[in-house]
């Protein structure tokens, strides 16, 4: 198959890091904080690599939007098995306000430019939890979408997607080209091994600006305030059942 896959990878604050709100409440502290690839994007890359290993896909292109540092994230995707990367340069204020609408416009433009047959994205990013980019990209391209995928198979030029939904699992059949978003149980991402990490250093990452793709990244949203969730108060221990009932009555619970 001569399919080309576009995989979006987002650089986010590492899952294990403790998040701190900036003193001016405009956002969270990102300076000097450990970042890594969004876990759902890792799963997306892994799925693309597995499709390539099964010879169902010819080329994997990893895409990330952001400042210079996102190149690390693209390199990780290359080390996992992607063939080349595209770095869409967005920095400063534009980067701070970059959201799913802008990214999906960029992905749609790249899909057309690169003549992609399949776009695989993580279902959501762990920093904003938007869960919108995949769906918006499909809408902009007027392509079918298979979101929350926990299983993906190619059957006679169509995609069979098993989706995780509230009631259980839903299986759908969609035409290609399509957009798929990866859910947790789609696969377990591989570790990038040293030989691949070395090879990845030689793979190409192209630089592109949103303007080159005809995309305007100005945001229509304004963040008013960012706060930590309310502190959970310590519990109170009581000695007897009577005390417990008394306290519950006091606080108006019963």
């Amino acid at each position, binding site marked *: 198959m001569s399919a080309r896959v576009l995989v979006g990878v987002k650089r986010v604050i*590492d*899952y*294990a*890091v403790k998040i701190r709100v900036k003193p001016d409440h405009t956002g969270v502290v990102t300076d*000097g904080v*450990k970042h*890594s690839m969004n876990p759902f994007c890792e799963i997306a890359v892994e799925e693309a690599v597995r499709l390539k290993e099964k010879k169902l896909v010819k080329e994997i292109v990893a895409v990330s939007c952001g400042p210079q540092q996102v190149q690390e994230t693209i390199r990780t995707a290359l080390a996992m098995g992607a063939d080349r990367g595209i770095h869409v340069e967005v920095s400063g204020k534009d980067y701070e306000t970059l959201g799913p609408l802008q990214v999906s416009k960029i992905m749609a433009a790249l899909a057309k430019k690169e003549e992609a047959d399949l776009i695989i994205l993580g279902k959501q990013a762990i920093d904003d939890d938007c869960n919108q980019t995949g769906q918006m990209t499909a809408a902009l391209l007027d392509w079918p979408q298979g979101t929350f995928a926990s299983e993906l198979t190619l059957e006679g030029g169509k995609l069979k997607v098993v989706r995780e939904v509230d009631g259980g699992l839903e299986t759908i059949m969609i035409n290609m080209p399509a957009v798929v978003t990866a859910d947790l149980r789609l696969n*377990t991402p*591989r*570790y*990038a*091994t*040293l*030989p691949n*990490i*070395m090879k990845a250093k030689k793979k190409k990452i192209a630089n592109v600006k949103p303007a080159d793709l005809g995309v305007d990244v100005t945001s229509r949203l304004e963040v008013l305030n960012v706060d930590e969730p309310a502190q959970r108060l310590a519990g109170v221990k009581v000695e007897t059942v009577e005390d417990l009932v008394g306290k519950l009555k006091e606080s108006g619970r019963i």
Partner: protein
Amino acid sequence: MGIFPRFTRLPLVSTFIWSQYSSALTAVGRETSDRALIVSSSQLIQHRCVHSRGSGASPANPGDAPPRSPFSRVTQKDLAFFTTLLPGRTITDPDLLKSSNIDWLKTVQGNSEVLLRPKTTEEVSQILRYCNDRNLAVCPQGGNTGLVGGSVPVFDEIILSTSLMNQVMMFDGISGILTCQAGCVLENLSHYLEEKDFIMPLDLGAKGSCHIGGNVSTNAGGLRLLRYGSLRGTVLGLEVVLADGRVLNCLAALRKDNTGYDLKQLFIGSEGTLGVITAVSILCPRKPKAVNVAFLGCSSFQQLLETFQCCRGMLGEILSAFEFLDASCMKLLEKHLKLTNPITESPFYIVIETAGSNATHDEEKLHNFLEEVMASSLVTDGTVATEATKIKALWSLRERVTEALTHEGYTYKYDISLPVEKIYDLVQDMRGHLGDMAKNVVGYGHVGDGNLHLNITSPSKDPALLAAIEPYVYEWTSKWKGSISAEHGLGLKKRNYIYYSKSSETVALMGSIKGMLDPKGILNPYKLLPDNIQ
């Protein structure tokens, strides 16, 4: 031989029953309650009984408990004193006492009936003064994670727990000196320090449970010793309560202090036999800004050693850990804990950690090193992690080997220091020597420090296997002038093997010091010092 005279005077008919499923523990044979180490379970698969008869029979295992010394027994009057001193913190409920009476490996169990939980040094002092007067034996207990049976009572010693002495007293952000009570859990201290941009100078697999007081009294080594040195260097001061209740305050928080004999060094590593540590002041390093972990595979131990040399040369000052495990360990991790091997199967695996203040600088050094070892084929495969979640995953492959082994049945553990080149020779020799008698013979450990953790498993406790292992392993170690206990200490299990690594004059002097500091011998009896000295 002069070493074990006491074993020729053993009382009659003692029964030892072992099982690897010790979820339901009951003490067997209350009439022979002076005998410890009795564990039975309703899920015995295979058990062996070792009967020790009177003189004339072969001596029982030197690692087993000696007869009970003539300490007093706890009376109602004693309990009244303790409950007045520590209201609500004098535990006598057998169910609550259970977990404090048995060690982490579930191989040693005592019959203590009293667990005390003091909150202050003053309370510890009063407890010990009283116990010394009454001639009551005391077993100090921290997180109870020790591996040589040193942290639990052998008979009915009163358990003195530091679990409520968990306050940080002071932290100086400029010098990095932390002063805290002995019952602080290591992991909690790490989290406290991380907020302030510092870390503890030691790290070990038991960090979620072990207390800093216990770490100091056992001179714990751990995963960071290669970089930050041992507790003998990083502990700056101690507050210790002596056997008669006197409080020895050597809690200076000073980097340099050459005024007289350095008494704290006596207590570090004394395993609770010379005094009870109640507070510690320790020098903490700055938290590294960049931590990387590489997991590598080597096809021979020789190549592993050459990788170590290359590592030392190319990574130099940023190297913070160099650990190894063998293919047998990996198999057990996959089998019992369902962990995945991130690289291709190899005979040996190395975990390398770098820690530095500049990510770009460290990564460049690390990548150059990795390119070098891959190109020269010293290393056959590997992976690198810079993100916290991945780093944790790679470290768990080394840190959880001990846990994986507990699922294999009974484990014979040996913690040996040897010249680095000889480390794996011992593992291979043991494999050859034991043949089919052992189910697994695995080797892993702090190869950078010359410290091997040799573990041998069998479905259940097997005296014939034990007889084949010991004293062979200790003689082998002694031949190469190694230590029979690199970091785990002697506790109950290894006390009588001290002579393999220390001369009789040295041990005799240890006995004199013990006699001077604890004339009645109430502090953690039956531990550390061999039976002929106690």
